[in-house]
């Protein structure tokens, strides 16, 4: 994998960002990242369409699906330059990065025709219906039910999803539901595509620690998915759901790292200004953060390189744990550098950004697989240690 070259592509993107992330889009710089996900939604949707006009949505998709067919290395370049330029959190991420590739791999021709173009163009936005109140870390404990309407062939869905990011700003949701009455665990699940704007779907925001509400609970009561909007066969929903997660290869994390680097830079700047940077302990912590970020970059490059020898299997497993804990700790460092000021809410944009970092990064070690789940996976799949015994409750 070559990240330093691709310089033509690199400058093309940088230039495009410089000329387009301006004017009314200026307000979007650095916004909409983790925890701040519900910021300026309408403007960010417009930004998605701006990206689409430049053919910068879905650049990794094959050309015949509307993408640019960029290689992994090239996608990394895109993410890095996007992040470096302060490109906002992508409203289209779930569509472009998750359901799009899933449909490309498992969808029917009809599904591809129906959904992919509108994902690419920024016309339709997607959200993810996996987690449930009793199926968080334990995803196989799905209870949302899908029952086939014998007349229409439609699937009728009842149940509750939680932690649905941006559901209130999305058009479609993909849902993992139980279609075989009485099935348990990974069997008897179905993977459905549902429009959110219908009777039988209710969206409730979940207010977060920082006061914003990026996540939602989504309640289904007789909501309907069309018969042809099943991905894969009924009963093999688990397979599709896991494959989808596999498409999240973390390319976007290299763009994310640009944002991390800027946060660290800001912390260093403030530490220089307010004297915190004279404290030997703060200095050690800043140095650690820098080292951790360097390591994270190489880790991501190793993970993305997808070594055919399998040398990196263990490392892939630990990547999420590494970056999320690094980022969470950075939030604490930011506060300790701010010192007494950390506690006072003001409209100083730098302080505000660091306070948001502090609060919102608390979610990093929880969503997308908690620390505890990550460590279980590393121990069991990476180190071959015995599985945790399952209990009999719930």
């Amino acid at each position, binding site marked *: 994998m070559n990240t330093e070259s691709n310089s033509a592509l690199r400058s093309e993107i940088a230039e495009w960002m410089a000329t387009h992330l301006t004017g009314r889009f200026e307000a979007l710089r650095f916004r909409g990242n983790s925890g701040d996900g519900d910021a300026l939604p309408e403007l960010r949707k417009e930004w998605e369409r701006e990206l689409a006009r430049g053919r910068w949505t879905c650049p990794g998709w094959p050309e015949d699906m509307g993408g640019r067919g960029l290689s992994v290395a090239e996608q990394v370049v895109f993410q890095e330059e996007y992040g470096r330029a302060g490109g906002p959190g992508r409203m289209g991420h779930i569509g472009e990065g998750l359901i799009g590739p899933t449909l490309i791999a498992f969808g029917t021709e009809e599904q591809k025709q129906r959904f992919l173009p509108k994902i690419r163009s920024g016309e339709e936005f997607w959200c993810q219906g996996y987690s449930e109140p009793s199926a968080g870390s334990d995803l196989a404990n799905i209870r949302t039910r899908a029952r086939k309407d014998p007349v229409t062939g439609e699937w009728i869905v009842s149940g509750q999803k939680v932690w649905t990011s941006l559901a209130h700003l999305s058009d479609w949701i993909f849902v993992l539901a139980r279609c075989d009455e009485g099935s348990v665990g990974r069997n008897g699940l179905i993977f459905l595509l549902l429009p959110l704007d219908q009777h039988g779907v209710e969206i409730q925001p*979940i207010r977060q620690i920082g006061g914003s509400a990026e996540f939602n609970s989504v309640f289904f009561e007789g909501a309907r998915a069309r018969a042809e909007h099943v991905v894969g066969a009924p009963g093999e929903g688990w397979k599709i759901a896991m494959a989808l997660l596999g498409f999240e290869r973390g390319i976007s994390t290299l763009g994310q790292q640009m944002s991390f680097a800027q946060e660290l830079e800001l912390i260093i700047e403030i530490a220089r200004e307010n004297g915190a940077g004279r404290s030997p302990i703060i200095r050690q912590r800043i140095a650690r953060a820098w080292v951790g970020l360097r390591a994270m970059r190489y880790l991501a490059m190793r993970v993305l390189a997808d070594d055919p020898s399998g040398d990196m299997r263990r490392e892939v497993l630990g990547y999420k744990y590494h970056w999320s804990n690094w980022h969470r700790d950075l939030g604490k460092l930011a506060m300790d550098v701010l010192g007494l000021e*950390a506690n*006072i*809410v003001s409209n100083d944009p730098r302080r505000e950004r660091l306070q948001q970092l502090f609060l919102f990064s608390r979610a990093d070690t*929880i969503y997308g697989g908690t620390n*505890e789940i990550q*460590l279980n996976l590393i121990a069991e799949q990476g180190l071959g240690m015995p599985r945790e015994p399952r*209990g009999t409750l719930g």
Partner: protein
Amino acid sequence: MTLVLTDDQRMIRDEAARLLSERSSSEAVRKIVDSGAGTDAKLWSALSRELGWCSMAIPEEFGGLGLGATELVLLQEICGQWLACVPFWSTACVATPLLLAAASEEAKQRLLPAIAVGDLTIAVAWGALGEINPLAVCTVNAAKVDGGYSLHGHVSQVVDLPFADLVLVPALLDGVLSLFAVRRDAGLHIEPLTSMDATRPIGAARFDALELPPESRIDGDGLTSDAVEAALALAQLCFAAEQAGAARGVMDVTLAYVAERVQFGRAIASFQAIKHRCARLEVDIAEVRALIYGAAANFSADDAGELRLEASGARALASELLFRAAEEAIQLHGGVGFTWEYDPQLYFKRAQATTAILAQPEGHFCMIADALLGEASA
């Protein structure tokens, strides 16, 4: 020196715990948070006027109960545990010891009985709240003028200021650190600040040639005595107790949650990694509490002695402990941990806010190291 609580002390503690578990419940605290007030005036009135909390450590000659440091740390622990939105620390654990240590007899006679009956809530405008000894960096100057004194300066953060009746202001007068008592209606400029931790109000105080009568200067002979140092150490110790109590509180919240939350067919409390993490927090809580109770039992109002180091040690450990306990609470609550609706976020914000007040852990350890090793020359 006894490290077992007396029956009276246990009664005071248990009664406080019973009361705050009702009156400073999650709902009650959230009401204060939502209101933006930061202080639960009704609760404070009950504690200070009806239950005489502020009289605990005031000598009997000034209308108090004549009890001591142990009672203060016990109450502070309970306050922390329930995140009680009251200016108890400012009034009883900072202002009162400072008055006892440094005020003239006349000022004591005037102020302490009023505190004891709950008529006077006091904030202390420390010069540099981020320092171990916040008097060392004084940002207010006093000058003698006709008919009294004039104060100039600015204190950027004063805990409980928006709610206080009276503000104690250490100020430099002819190079000597003196103590002034300023009523909030005396022309003081108060700017309320919005705090991330909405369970305690903070304000900025500005003194623009504020003219005060002669009796507003209340110190006997400056703020330099060992007694003042002991008072400061007691304030630190009581703050540590609040933090330790909050750690206990957030851990109880967590223990209740993990006992009920089922994943993979088991209460998550049954997972060993979670058990061990809770157990390690418990060990650390015991450590900090032992230090706090031990130091409180040794407390002498005349001699800071080792109390200064122990109070600093307790503060450093308690700051770290509370933050870790709150952080673990969020983590172990999983998805709901970072929601507004669950309580970990309240403790988490308190944890961060209290870390920075009266010096971060490294500052305390630095001070202890200086005492053990001599000041660093590097």
